[in-house]
């Protein structure tokens, strides 16, 4: 009897261990499969990453314009999205009356729940026409001395894709920053206020600096999300492999390259090029997430340690 019971015990344990390992197995398969799948183009080395000619017909596969587009749209998303997200997070943790807190958190969560293809649809038919008619002309008129705001205005462009990404990364940055701010002990605020600081001074001097690593982690997560976002970007970026200084110009991104061209990839090299684009996406987003999670888990551990004191 005793033996049978303990057999069930270890059986259950091994079942859970085995299924938990699936997470590790999946992670390994990602790297292995994408690495072997992209070997034909990996052999061309840096020409793939830094080549700027994308000409599948003649087997020229340089993804620099796509890499540029992915990085630039993500950068725009962060420049616009981070201040907004921090504003939301500060409002939620420092300013909001208790009654407003849960409805606002609710809105932020709903923003995260909207499927990305719906962001794309809305961006294409609602946001892009508004930007083209009512926003971009003014940018060109008043800030046109900057090369980034010059040139022909299209509705679908690097900037439009960056703006939709900014909206999409608000929930992740805002919610994790809010958690980081809420974890700041009240003594930090009280100390600053007692010294005669105004509310905004207290927030900037003693609250934000205390929550800094959590905020930085949330920005890394936001970047990872923006860098790999596919549907909204493929519908709004214009899918043209060019490198232009103007943000009004159409562009391309690694993710939208894959989504847009996988059906055309009839040769082994072409397929391999798309898989390598996936490998680059995997590496960058994996790294961004590892850094962010390490920062967050260190935070949690130091907080648990502090709670014992």
């Amino acid at each position, binding site marked *: 009897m005793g033996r049978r019971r303990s057999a069930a015990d270890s059986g259950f344990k091994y079942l859970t261990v085995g299924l938990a390992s699936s997470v590790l197995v999946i992670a390994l398969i990602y790297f292995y499969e*994408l690495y072997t799948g992209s070997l034909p183009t990996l052999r061309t080395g840096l020409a793939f990453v830094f080549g700027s000619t994308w000409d599948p017909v003649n087997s020229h596969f340089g993804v620099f314009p796509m890499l540029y587009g992915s990085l630039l749209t993500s950068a725009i998303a962060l420049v616009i999205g981070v201040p907004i997200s921090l504003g939301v997070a500060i409002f939620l943790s420092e300013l909001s009356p208790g009654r407003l807190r849960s409805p606002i958190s609710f809105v932020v969560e709903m923003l995260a729940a909207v499927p990305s293809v719906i962001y794309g649809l809305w961006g294409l038919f609602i946001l892009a026409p508004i930007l083209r008619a009512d926003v971009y002309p003014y940018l060109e008129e008043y800030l046109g001395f900057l090369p980034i705001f010059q040139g022909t205005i299209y509705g679908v462009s690097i900037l439009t894709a960056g703006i939709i990404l900014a909206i999409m990364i608000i929930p992740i940055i805002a919610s994790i920053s809010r958690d980081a701010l809420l974890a700041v002990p009240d003594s930090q605020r009280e100390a600053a206020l007692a010294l005669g600081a105004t509310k*905004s001074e207290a927030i900037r001097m003693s609250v934000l600096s205390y929550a800094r690593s959590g905020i930085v982690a949330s920005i890394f997560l936001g970047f990872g999300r923006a860098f790999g976002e596919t549907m909204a970007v493929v519908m709004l970026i214009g899918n043209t492999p060019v490198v232009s200084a103007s943000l009004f110009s159409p562009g391309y991104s690694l993710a939208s390259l894959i989504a847009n061209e996988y059906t055309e990839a009839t040769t082994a090299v072409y397929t391999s090029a798309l898989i390598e684009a996936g490998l680059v996406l995997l590496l960058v987003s994996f790294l961004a997430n590892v850094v962010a999670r390490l920062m967050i888990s260190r935070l949690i551990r130091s907080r648990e340690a502090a709670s014992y004191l």
Partner: protein
Amino acid sequence: MKTRRRLVNRIFLSLCVVALLAAVVPLVSIIVDVASKGIGAMNLDFFTQLPPLACTQPPCPEGGLGNAIQGTVYVVALSSLIGLPIGLFSGVYVSEYGRASRFGYLMRFLGDVLAGIPSIVTGVLIYTIIVLTTDSFSIIAGAVALGTMMIPIMSNTTAEALKAVPNSIREASLALGTRKWRTSLLVIANAKKSIATGSLLAVARITGETAPLILTMGISVLWFGGFTVPVASLTYFIYYFATSPFQNWQNLAWGAALFLMVIVLGINMGVRLVTRGKRVYA
């Protein structure tokens, strides 16, 4: 000096409110626009008919997306069969067995990291493993892709739900001589509500996925035709129709977006209402 500081204070606090508006306005606009543009496509045909041909001159056939609804339901159900159980047991390990071990920590950590991997990468992975080897898009490939995405999400949700179960329950059960595995089942039973809501959120999340499906399941204008042929899905049709120049297709894209949004946001809102005040993980 004093007035300057007060002014800076005012400006800073107002900017926070402005930021809040900047976050709320797009959501309201998305909901209002999708509802107003999609409501026109909502009729019985939308749920029962096949997609219409492209149409340049009115009168245009309206058609529907019955096959896409069917395909989405099938693929979400299949992927849940893969993702939910594996994720659940993986979460049980992380919370009940691996809490003090390095391996458990690593699995939890990897789960968080994998949840942040772009979905298109999962699409590429399953494309190379299944689609290229079988030489066909299929609902199997689609379900494996979505299921793969579900595992880390479900594992993390379950682990958090189980960790919230008070230790006194584990101790009481073990003190009565109950075996560890029965104790684990007891802990699962205690967290069943959070596990159920977490599963629902994972399903909602998967239902709105597009990028992995276009690389694995393909698209079809026919009803579900088996496990080894391309199958239609709502999300792929939204993308396909929205980027087409045809008015009747674009109308259906809005209709599909409305239907999808009602389901996905509906599940999310329902879960928040049920778990009001409590922390929900997913």
